[in-house]
């Protein structure tokens, strides 16, 4: 049995090799690695769609350095070990020039050593907790100072004085809340409470009792996925809907709001770098193009936009470098301005994206009315200076 299985794999690998060799002259392979199955599939499939859309657009416009892009799509199956395994398959067996993908920090952390060892480059599209910079990853999603802190500053400016922190029990909420707590202490504002529920948790009765007792001015919500539905439902049942208690969420984008039933979260707030409702011609075209492919009702979200812009940023960097080599591409990408549906952006020397942040309020259709935008582009800071003093990215300036 062992013989036949390895034999089959051997055969398949040989065919794949022969196939890619035959096409090597006029095409360049890139990896698209997202969860197409498992719990994360619902979010990651849309990012895959956006990445593939960008690749198709670029191919239609003549490709990169005269070569057509061939997307090798792999399923990370919502499992960090499979992400690592598929990343090495893409690099070793498919010989890809670069990889676009990842969503959870667990998947990124598992892939990181693979990319560092192979000297390859990953383009990561999702907001995250920072505290990491690898020369082999381009981070286009928001750093904490591009999402959490703008939301905090906005709430402070609105006169909020006591903050209640609710999150799913994993790394992003824990780290985000650590940063918020440091800033609360620094600014002399009150921490009304901090509660975590296991990922996928559905019972909020105790959490809600504590919120009722604490009477906070605003709740910072870093719950993940379905837990949000339970939370908002049970808050409403307890007479504390979003119209009575203000909630600022960090993991609810257009897609989640519409799937949850917009009436449930209507009137609550969110902070992102991109909203579907951003007023610009480029954005209207982008949203239109996506809907032509994936249905007139399809939601367009911040991580999708980042997945899309990653492909264009890679193309621009390859053309500026005149090469597909990892080191040449990452050097060229830094500081290079790329036009995107959310306006021109560029990567900072720490390989994170300079971008602005917006606060939006959900309406009855699950769209965001943009209430506030940061005055200028925010420089990405992987390590919050107040919370992690003295920490910086090791490779910058090397």
């Amino acid at each position: 049995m062992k013989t036949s299985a390895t034999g089959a794999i051997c055969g398949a690998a040989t065919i794949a090799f022969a196939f890619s060799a035959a096409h090597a002259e006029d095409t360049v392979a890139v990896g698209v690695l997202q969860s197409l199955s498992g719990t994360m599939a619902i979010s990651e499939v849309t990012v895959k769609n956006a990445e593939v859309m960008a690749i198709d657009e670029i191919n239609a416009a003549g490709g990169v350095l005269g070569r057509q892009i061939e997307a090798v799509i792999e399923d990370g199956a919502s499992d960090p070990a499979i992400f690592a395994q598929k990343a090495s398959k893409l690099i070793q067996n498919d010989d890809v020039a670069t990889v676009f993908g990842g969503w959870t920090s667990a998947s990124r952390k598992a892939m990181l050593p693979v990319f560092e060892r192979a000297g390859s480059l990953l383009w990561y599209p999702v907001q995250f907790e920072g505290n990491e910079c690898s020369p082999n990853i381009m981070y286009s999603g928001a750093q904490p100072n591009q999402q959490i802190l703008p939301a905090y500053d906005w709430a402070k400016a609105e006169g909020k004085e006591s903050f209640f922190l609710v999150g799913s029990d994993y790394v992003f909420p824990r780290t985000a809340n650590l940063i918020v707590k440091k800033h609360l202490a620094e600014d002399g504002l009150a921490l009304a409470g901090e509660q975590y529920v296991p990922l996928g948790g559905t019972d909020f009765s105790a959490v809600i009792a504590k919120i009722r007792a604490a009477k906070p001015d605003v709740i910072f919500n870093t719950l993940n996925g379905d837990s949000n539905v339970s939370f908002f439902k049970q808050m409403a049942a307890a007479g504390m809907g979003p119209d009575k208690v203000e909630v600022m969420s960090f993991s609810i984008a257009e897609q989640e709001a519409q799937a949850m039933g917009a009436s449930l979260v209507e009137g609550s707030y969110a902070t992102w770098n991109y909203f579907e409702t951003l007023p610009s011609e480029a954005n209207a075209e982008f949203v239109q193009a996506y809907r032509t492919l994936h249905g007139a009702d399809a939601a367009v979200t911040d991580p999708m936009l980042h997945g899309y812009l990653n492909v264009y940023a890679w193309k621009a960097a390859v053309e500026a470098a005149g090469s597909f080599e990892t080191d040449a591409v990452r050097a060229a990408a830094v500081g290079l301005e790329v036009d995107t549906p959310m306006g021109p952006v560029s990567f900072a020397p720490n390989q994170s994206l300079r971008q602005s942040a917006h606060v939006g309020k959900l309406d009855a259709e699950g769209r965001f009315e943009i209430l506030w935008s940061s005055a200028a582009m925010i420089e990405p800071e992987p390590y919050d200076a107040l919370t992690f003093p003295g920490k910086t990215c090791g490779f910058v300036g090397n």
Partner: protein
Amino acid sequence: MLDATLFAGQVFNGFSVASLFVLAALGLALSFGLMRVINMAHGEMLMLGGYLAYLTYLIVPGPMAILVAMPVAFLGAALVGGLMEVTVIRRLSSRPLDTLLATWGVSLILQQAARSAFGPIGVGVTAPDWLNTGFAIGSLYFPSTRIFILAVAVAVLAGLGLLIARTRLGLLVRAVNQDRMMAAASGINTRRVDLAVFCLGTGIAGLAGVVLSLLGPVTPTVGQSYIVPAFLVVVMGGLGSMIGTTAAAIILGLVSALSQIFLDVSMSQVLMLVFVIVFLQFRPQGVVATRSRALEG
């Protein structure tokens, strides 16, 4: 300092969680007591009840939809449960551990089927307005959904108690429970009793799915979040006893809610498991012991 309001509120929440545990565990306990099998797809019967409630809401919207959804979900889940009993469980009747494994296979298939039919993200059921209120006593607030769920649990317990004590089916169930061979020898069709009880148990899970939809989203994996506590309730309750199951559910509900005054939810889960293991050190036969002359049960 222990806040008296928070404490009183958590006692209420404890009973509210207990009512969910009872509804999720009763069906398991019934068929476990009678047939010694554990249905790992029981959680998916909750899920099915939730999706049936969702579909009922689409067809007959309005404030009374939930009252229509309850019998629909009961019958739907009972029907699927019956199919499972006839096709899978009956074949494995003498191998309880294998039944457990085979029903896990059923549970995987049902989850994936729900994913294919309704999408991986949850669907929502909006509670009618008469369930979207509540009342306050002092600084304590009692949401009407929670009270409704408590009422459903009490009604189900009362109905089931009457059924077992007063009806012919109840008599047959008691007979088979006491001595299956003897009952069969005196002409009772034990297979039909098994089937009836299994359908009843899965039907109750369907009902549980409807009330769960008032508290959270209905997702392909919604059953999974309640099934492990339900198993613990069955283990702690003792061999399929209704009173034992109810008592175990209340104890675990209170342990969970009261410990959350001091601990976060994750640690409270750990505490619940440790509590069950320690409890079994003192009463390995569960809250209510069933005497049996059988040596190898």
